[in-house]
């Protein structure tokens, strides 16, 4: 790897590092100040795990309904197809009409898949 690309690496990631450092600083400062300045009088009531004001029940590991998996699978499949859209979008001008038509064909196929899922009831939550 040459110097030019090293330079561009720091250049492009520099702002991100600054944001990360800044947010870390804010978070650490706030927690430190809160624990230093805030009054402390713990009671057993206050020490139990907080769950939206209601008392926590059951084990922490709950079995998820199998329906979530189906939805998750469908989400992942349709989501990943977006990776073909990005390169196309970047090169949209150069690909021109051919690219547009090809992408439309691709999207039509995707839509067909979506329609199929819909008609087959894969998107129904209640079965």
């Amino acid at each position, binding site marked *: *790897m040459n110097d030019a690309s090293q330079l561009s690496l720091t250049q492009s990631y520099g702002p991100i590092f600054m944001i990360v450092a800044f947010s870390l600083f804010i978070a650490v400062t706030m927690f430190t100040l809160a624990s230093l300045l805030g009054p402390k009088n713990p009671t057993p009531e206050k020490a139990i795990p907080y769950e939206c004001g209601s008392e926590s029940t059951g084990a922490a590991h709950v079995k998820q309904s*199998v329906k979530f998996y*189906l939805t*998750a*699978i*469908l989400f*992942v499949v349709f989501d*990943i197809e977006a*990776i*073909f859209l990005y390169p196309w979008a970047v090169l949209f001008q150069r690909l021109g009409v051919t690219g547009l038509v090809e992408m439309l064909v691709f999207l039509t196929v995707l839509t067909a898949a979506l329609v199929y899922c819909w008609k087959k009831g894969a998107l129904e939550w209640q079965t």
Partner: protein
Amino acid sequence: MTLAGCLTLAAALFSLGVYGLLTRRQAVAVLVSVELMANAANLCFVAFSRFRGDVTGQALAVFALALTVAEVAVGLALVILLYRAHGDTRVDLASEMKQ
């Protein structure tokens, strides 16, 4: 990131995948191992693509990603199928002769 670094990482991922495939019994864990292997290959493609300044490898990696995801979707569906039929998701890849 040097080329050697990328390749070491890819080789490590690939080996981990093979190890997991051979030792794990849970279907999902085996699936994850296989995906590790596939992604090791993708990493190789991308690393060499950048190293050579040639985009073919990246294009292939994008396609491979999409295909692997489709594969995972089918795999997870089959795991659910097994769970519904069996009540268990263990799979013994070595068992053969059950007459």
